[in-house]
C-alpha cells in the first residue's frame, strides 16, 4: 500500500525557521536499524534515504511528536530539539 502523507501535510499550518533545522541526523556511512526505521515510522515522512544510502531529514513538515528521538535514543543518530518559540507546526485544531 502506498499512501502519500505529503498530500495531507498541505492542510497543516507551519512557520518554518529557515536555516535552523530543529532536527539533525549525525553524519554516517551506513544507517543504524533504528535510523533506517525512521524512514517508515516518522508520521510526517521527514526522513528519506538519499542515493548514497544515508538517511536524511527535512524537518519542514515535522509534527513535533518526538518519536524519532525515542527510537534513536540508544543509537544516538539524531539531535532533536524543539523549534525556536513560535516556529514549527501550529495546529489549528490539535
Amino acid at each position: 500500500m502506498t499512501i502519500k502523507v505529503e498530500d495531507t501535510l498541505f492542510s497543516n499550518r507551519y512557520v518554518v525557521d529557515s536555516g535552523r533545522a530543529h532536527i539533525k541526523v549525525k553524519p554516517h556511512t551506513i544507517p543504524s536499524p533504528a535510523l533506517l526505521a525512521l524512514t517508515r515510522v516518522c508520521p510526517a515522512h521527514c526522513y528519506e534515504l538519499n542515493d548514497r544510502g544515508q538517511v536524511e531529514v527535512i524537518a519542514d513538515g515535522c509534527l513535533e511528536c518526538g518519536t524519532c528521538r525515542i527510537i534513536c535514543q540508544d543509537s544516538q543518530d539524531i539531535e532533536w530539539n524543539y523549534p525556536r518559540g513560535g516556529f514549527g507546526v501550529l495546529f489549528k485544531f490539535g
Partner: protein
Amino acid sequence: MASAQQPNDKFDVIVIGAGPSGNAAAYVLARGGLRVLQLERGEYPGSKNVQGAILYANALEQIIPDFRDDAPLERHVIEQRIWMLDDKSYVGMNYRSEDFNEERPNRYTIIRAPFDKWFSRKVRDAGATIVCETTVTELIRTEAGRVIGVRTDRDGAVVLADMVIMAEGVNGLVGQRSGLRPELKPDSVALAVKEMHFLPRETIDARFNLKGAEGVVIEAMGTVTDGMVGTAFLYTNQESISVGIGCLVSDFKTGTAAPYELLHRFKTHPAIAPLLEGAEVKEYAAHLIPEGGYNSIPQLYGDGWLIVGDAGQFVNAVHREGSNMAMTSGRLAAELVIKLHRMREPFSSENLAEYHTMLKNSFVMKDLKKYKGIPGFLHSSSKHVFGTYPRLLSQAAQTWFRVDGADKREKERQIVSMMRKDRSFSGLISDAFKLVRAWR
C-alpha cells in the same frame, strides 16, 4: 517568599507549558494570589497541543465550576461504541442512554486549539503573566541543585522564581535534560496520528442518529493495528469528526507499517468509511501518549520543582483518560504550592513530597496503580489481543448468526473448534488469567 518589595522580574512560580496541566496549575496559583509566569513555545496556547479529544467534566469543574457557560465544547457524549475489528467486520458494544442528556453532562468532545485558548484566557484573567513563542531551554539551578528559574530561547534570557512547575508535556525535554527524569522508553509510549474531517452538522447528526449537541465516540481495536498494541478512535464534533489511531512506538519500530498507512486502513474499514464519506480533511497531527502507566512515573518533585500532566506519565491507557489527570495533577500541585507560600514554608523537596501523597489519595494514582499490570499484559499477549481474538470473535459471531441449514449444536461445535485451532485452550485460559490479574 515573594513580596511587593521584590524586583519585577522575579516570580513566585514559573509554569512551563500551556496545556491542561499547566493551565490548571497557573489558574489555581494566580487565583490564590501568587505571581505566576507561564511560558509557552507555541504561537498561541494550544498551537502545539494534540488530543482526541474528550473532556471529562469533573476534573475541570473542580477548577472552573461554571466552565460550561463559555468554554468551546463540541458535543456531549451520549453514546459510546467499543468495537473489535477484523478486516471486514466489527463485533462491538454500544451504550447509549438518554441519561447522558443531563443538565451538566459528564463528557464532551472538544477541539484542543480553541479549548486551550479559552482556558488560557481564564488563566490570564486570573492574573497570571503568559508569554508565548518562548521555548524554555534549561532550568537554572543552584550548586546544591535547587531549581531557581529557567533559561529561554529569547536571547538566552533568564527568569527567576521560587518554584518551577514543569507542565511541558509528554516529551518533557527540560526535565529530561536537567537529569530530573529519564527519556521515554519506546515500549511505554504510543504514537498516535489523527485527522480532522469536516462535514456539515446535519450530515453528522444523520449519520450518527444525533440531535442538538449530542455526540458519539467510537473506540476500536483489532486487526487494523496488525497485531501491534494500539487502538483507533472516532469522535464526533459539531461540524467535524476526529479520527485517529495509535500504537506503541516499540511496535512501530519493529513493525512494517507506517502510521498513516494504519490510519488509512482504519478510515477505509467498511464500518468506518461510510461515516467519513465526502469529508474535507483540514489537518493531520501526530502526538505521543505516555502509556507506561504506574511503573513509568518518574520522580515528581524536588527542591524547587514539580512535574504535572503528561510529563509525569499520568495517562490511564485502558480508559483513555489523560487530560483529566493532567488538570487534577496541575490543580493539586498548585494547591500545595499556595499552602506552602501562605505558611511561608520553603519549596524544599521535603515539603513538596506532599504532592505525591495528594496524588496517591486522588483517582490519579489510585487508577494508575490499579492498572499497573496492563502494559505488561498487552506486551506479552499483543499478537492475540490485537489479531487472533478480534478475528475469532468475528468468525464466531458470523457462524452463530448465519442461518444455513447447520443445526445449532453443530454451530457450537464449529465455534469451539475454531477457537481451539487458533488459540489452544491453555492459551485462552492463560490470557484470561493474566488479564484478570492485571485488571484487579
